[in-house]
């Protein structure tokens, strides 16, 4: 695994992932004729069969990133850049060059998406079965075979296939509907699954249960998964690699173990410290002062500098590129070494017990 970035000339550019499922280059979403942007020059690769956790606060541009992967940015937003999908076999596909019909085929069959709020993704007057059948028909798939696969998926998700298929959406609990939606999104056996806050409306126990099931599904069906959330600790248990978003761009990308043990961007470190958890001393959980910026009037230089305790002159003037923390971890921060030394993680003591700092994070 490697980090992929960004402007030409960056050293990180040369260490591309060997077998990417999706390559995203300089993706940018603008509104108001370019006056404000909600996704700013984002470049990253999704490795085949990896789970990439994209973490950001509300309004950081993370949902825009998800929509970009399917070229479904809501109007009047304009998406530019290059998004290349690599099927397991066959020629790479330029997503942004596809016709409407080609795009319709790509979505669901190759790249599928699960949104937050399963209830609004289902038609309330149709049985769950009808949703599966219509999806299969719309994509010219064999319905009988597809329904067998649907049953298998539902069982994988600890659901009783017959009961769920015969139910109307409102007859199922929130957790069941969300799992049925995950099964529906996978019924055409897609290569890539993009999930935008798929569990946010559920209670924690159901969220964790679903994450555990996703891990099993991901391994069983060889899918690449992009999981978008504001909840860093939640996704840490599932993601192979994490990308932290702040003010419409990625500020740090690293394998999960490295990120949790050695986060380098001050924002990442402060975000890790701000989340309540069960083990850290209570006094050391601290909120991040200030607010994240709106798409207009972004701060000059590093967008995080107004909230950053380590900001100095250069942070206000120029925008930091990725700095190599290791060959797999990059942070857009001039002062990442100071951040690691001065912003202590409130669970650091517990990390040492496990000896995970650095080390090999791959399976």
């Amino acid at each position, binding site marked *: 695994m490697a980090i992929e970035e960004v402007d030409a000339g960056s050293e990180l550019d040369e260490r591309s992932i060997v077998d990417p499922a999706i390559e995203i280059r300089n993706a940018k979403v603008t509104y108001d004729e370019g006056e404000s942007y909600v996704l700013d020059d984002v470049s990253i690769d999704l490795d085949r069969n990896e789970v990439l956790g994209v973490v950001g*606060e*509300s309004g950081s541009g993370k949902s825009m990133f998800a929509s970009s992967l399917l070229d479904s940015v809501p109007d009047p937003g304009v998406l530019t850049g290059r998004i290349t999908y690599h099927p397991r076999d066959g020629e790479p596909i330029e997503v942004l060059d596809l016709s409407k019909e080609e795009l319709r085929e790509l979505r669901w069959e190759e790249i599928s998406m699960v949104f937050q709020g399963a209830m609004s993704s289902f038609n309330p007057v149709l049985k769950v079965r009808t949703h599966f059948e219509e999806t299969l028909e719309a994509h010219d798939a064999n319905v009988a075979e597809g329904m067998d696969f649907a049953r298998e998926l539902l069982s994988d998700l*600890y659901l009783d296939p017959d009961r769920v298929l015969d139910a109307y959406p409102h007859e199922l*609990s*929130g*957790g*069941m509907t969300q799992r049925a939606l995950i099964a529906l999104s996978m019924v055409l056996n897609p290569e890539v699954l993009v999930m935008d806050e798929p569990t946010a409306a*559920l*209670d*924690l*126990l*159901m*969220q*964790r*249960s679903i994450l*555990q099931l996703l891990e099993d599904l991901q391994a069983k069906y060889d899918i690449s998964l992009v999981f978008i959330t*504001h*909840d*860093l*600790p*939640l996704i*840490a*248990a599932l993601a192979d690699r994490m990308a932290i978003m702040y003010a419409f761009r990625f500020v740090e990308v690293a394998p*999960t*173990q490295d990120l*949790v043990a050695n986060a380098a961007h001050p924002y990442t470190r402060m*975000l*890790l410290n*701000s*989340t*309540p*958890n*069960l*083990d*850290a001393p*209570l006094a050391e*959980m*601290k*909120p*991040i002062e200030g*607010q994240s910026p709106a798409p207009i009037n972004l701060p000059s230089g590093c967008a995080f500098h107004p909230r950053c305790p380590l900001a100095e002159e250069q942070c206000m003037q120029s925008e930091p590129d990725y700095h190599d923390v290791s060959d797999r971890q990059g942070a857009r921060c001039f002062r990442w070494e100071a951040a690691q030394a001065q912003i202590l993680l409130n*669970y650091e003591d*517990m*990390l040492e*017990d*496990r000896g995970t700092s650095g080390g090999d994070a791959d399976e």
Partner: protein
Amino acid sequence: MSDDGTPVLSLEDVEVHFEDKPGLLEFGDETEVVRAVDGVSIDVMENDVVTLVGESGCGKTTLGKTAIGLQRPTGGSVKYRGHDIWDIRDGNSDADITWRDVRTSLQIIHQDPGSSLNPNRRIQTILAEPLKQVRPDLGRTEKRERILSLLERVGMNPAPDFADRYPHQLSGGEQQRVALSRALLMNPDVILADEAISAVDVSLRVEMMDLMLELQAEFDTSFIFISHDLSNARYFTAHADGQIGVMYLGELAEIGPAEEIVNSPKHPYTNVLRWATPDLSLQQTGEIPMRKIDVPDPVDPPSGCRFHTRCPEAREACQTEHPPTYSDDRHHVACFRENEDHDYWESPKLTD
């Protein structure tokens, strides 16, 4: 509990059953009873925090609403400063407390602040409304002053600017601060915070909880805090030296001081909630410590211990007998595993 006076609120053996009558088009005349809350007793003291945790549908919101008089219990009693609030309501009480006093003293903040604020009113007007009720003697300027100082206190600066905005012009966190201010203006004894921080970003939750804790000390209120997240429950409750109550299918499975519930849970279900709580320092969480993912139907809850259908430790004894509550100082648990001599240990494990 720390105080030795009368509890502000005292719930005794509270039971809330909802009748679900068959609809016009359904056959049969079987009335289904949803047992939302069954036999729960909790005391809330002055300046106390009682947190209820559990899954969706475990009855924590119903219990919270019953505690503050928004829901009439079908059994047991809810007492405010020693007087049954429903007797007060029905005029059967000799206490010199009116129903209005009770309702004023017990306030609520909802999960979704956006929908609890009138979208067509400015913040100033929204906050003036409760003030009109409790302090009709205040003039316009005095009212405005109180509102502004409270807005400042909850961190909304500059206050005059915020007071003139409409709810949609505020972020989710700011809306929740307005909802909190509105509850505080009534000078309440108890505020029910029903998933009050679940809708704000994870990174802002600590800030919101800190604010609520500061205000709790300043305004002398108690909180009933409802959450499905054990780490938030721990943060909020431990800071206030309160108790966490773990609910399962309408019953209290375990209740005790925050750190004890988190660090040495005794009920297998509390352990499950602990497993579900994301933890940065321990990523290898392993399999779900439960035999089934979905909660059984509360219309027909399992016999014996209600958790036996999912419990990883369940044995045959759990199917038939309802576990009593075993108490150890401030820590109470409803599980046979607390009794070393119970038949439980001799009976075969449930596997299915």
